[in-house]
């Protein structure tokens, strides 16, 4: 078996709520292989989003390690973190989080600017990604001129801009209608079939039902980790 692209070992996170410690994550461990399409589900407060922010280096764990592509990212210093975020991780958020003053094209372009990609390559890549997302004619529109589905597709294109090892999607269908939701899930699944590792945090069981692997969290722990047969069949 290949070395996992994501490896989580004994990850714990404890917040202090006043003087009371709250264990958002307790000793979580699992591996993710390259190209996996995986969902993390669980009720509110189960630790899913905390977990995602640990992997994405947006927050620091109290204990444990996360390895992405063999690199222990939880050991990264504040000055090393931006490089890891640029090169290893792509984020897709529930609220799309596009920069409102920039066009769809520029929103994809800006992610590559921080990676110091030359202008000509950036242009080429942004146009290619947006075309793949079916947004060729909407490239110069501002987020306010795009529908929720279109905005989320721009966000996916942006997440992919620097060829990250993993795309972390936090409730990517939380703000869209069911038709758009299906389209987004299909799009993400299509990307995973081409080798892109995708990890979705969701409440929505109809989303998780279409992923190949489902990790169910409860009270900061993994309650179950199952291969989803439906997802398998659908993918096939």
């Amino acid at each position, binding site marked *: 078996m290949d070395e996992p692209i994501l490896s989580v070992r004994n990850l714990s996170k404890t917040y202090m709520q006043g003087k009371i410690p709250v264990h958002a994550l307790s000793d979580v461990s699992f591996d993710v292989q390259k190209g996996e399409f995986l969902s993390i589900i669980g009720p509110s407060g189960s630790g899913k989003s905390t977990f995602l922010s640990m992997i994405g280096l*947006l*927050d620091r764990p109290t204990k444990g390690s996360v390895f992405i592509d063999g690199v222990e990212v939880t050991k990264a210093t504040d000055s090393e973190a*931006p490089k890891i975020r640029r090169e290893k991780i792509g*984020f897709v*958020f529930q*609220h799309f*989080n596009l920069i409102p*003053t*920039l066009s769809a094209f520029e929103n994809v372009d800006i992610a590559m600017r921080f990676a110091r990609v030359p202008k000509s390559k950036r242009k080429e890549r942004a146009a290619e990604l947006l075309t793949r997302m079916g947004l060729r004619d909407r490239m110069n529109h501002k987020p306010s001129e795009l529908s929720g589905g279109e905005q989320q597709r721009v966000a996916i294109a942006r997440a992919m801009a*620097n060829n990250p090892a993993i795309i972390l999607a936090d409730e990517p269908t939380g703000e869209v209608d069911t038709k758009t939701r299906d389209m987004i899930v299909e799009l993400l699944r299509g990307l995973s079939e081409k080798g892109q590792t995708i990890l979705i945090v969701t409440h929505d069981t109809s989303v998780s039902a279409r992923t190949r692997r489902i990790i169910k969290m409860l009270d900061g722990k993994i309650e179950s980790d199952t291969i989803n047969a439906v997802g398998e069949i659908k993918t096939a």
Partner: protein
Amino acid sequence: MNDLIIRNITQRKFRTGLTVFGIALGIFAVMVMGGMSEYFNRHSENTLNLVDKIQVVPETGYLGGSIDESTVRKVNRVPGVSDAYGLLWMPYDVEGIGLIGDYVVGIPIDKQETTLKDTKLKSGRLLLPSDTYRAVLGSNVEREFKIKVGDELTIKSKRFRGTSSITHERNFTVVGILEYTSSDYDNVIAIPLETAQKFYELENTVSYIWVVPEPSADGEDLAKRIELSVEKITALSPQKLREQVEKTLVIINLITLSSAILAAIIGGLSVMNTMLMSVSERTKDFGLMKAMGAEIWDILYLTMGESALMGVLGGIFGIIGGGIFIYYMNEYLSSMGMVLFAITPRLIIISLLFATLLGTLSGSIPAYRAMKMNPMEAMKYG
């Protein structure tokens, strides 16, 4: 990144406009006050360069009295003195005290070139031994009275008869006009000494004496020697004069510059306010940029670049505004016989640097906030 900075500034036109206007007002104040300071500095420097002789004044001071002409001969006899001659000084406006504005100087005809030093004539000629009611004017006098060579200028004198005084006036024909020197010479109305003494009824009297030292003589020593040799006078060497003028200039500079800097700091606070607002509005954007892998330097560059650009723009507008104001103010003032402002390259460079620094520094606190933002927390804003 620069295009992102420009875009952000241009997308918030009204706010940017107000902020730039705030800075521009501050820099306008720096230009105007600084221009005044520069003028005083330049004017004093030029005047001191022209007045490079030892000044012998009544012991009561410059405006305190007069000296008998026999004193000139006494000074001339002091070893180390190459030449000494008296000048009669009177304010042009007999009602004024003569601290500012034009003044009449009675000058020995044969000492004109020594007195004027490098000052050239713009038109006409200097006074000749045969001249009586003739005058050579400084360029501010020419501008004030819109006068040219051949025209006549009326000069008044106040003559005292017991407790009352009568004003006497006389037309003087202008024979020459001096070039602009940005010194006290621009306000001079030079007439022959003898004519001046007669006109003001101050025969055998001068206001002060100018002493040309011998080339080997030390100005400071000679001034002391003159004071010891001649009674009831004070002798000021060029160095001493410079020291006294510089002391006064320091005070003027402090007053003008501190008020200008205060105005500019108020402009800087408006940048800080705008940037704080702009950063807090874009909290989510900065959090997002960090999540996308932006380095802290990228965030700093974006925020401080924006405030620095506003500073530069404010600086440019302030300099242009200040320049236009100074130009018209000088035009207006020169019609009244004085100039009060000078624009120097140094002033422009300092104003622009100050504006840029002000913008950059005012942006540093908001930038620090943006830089320190936790991406997770920042994105919760949305």
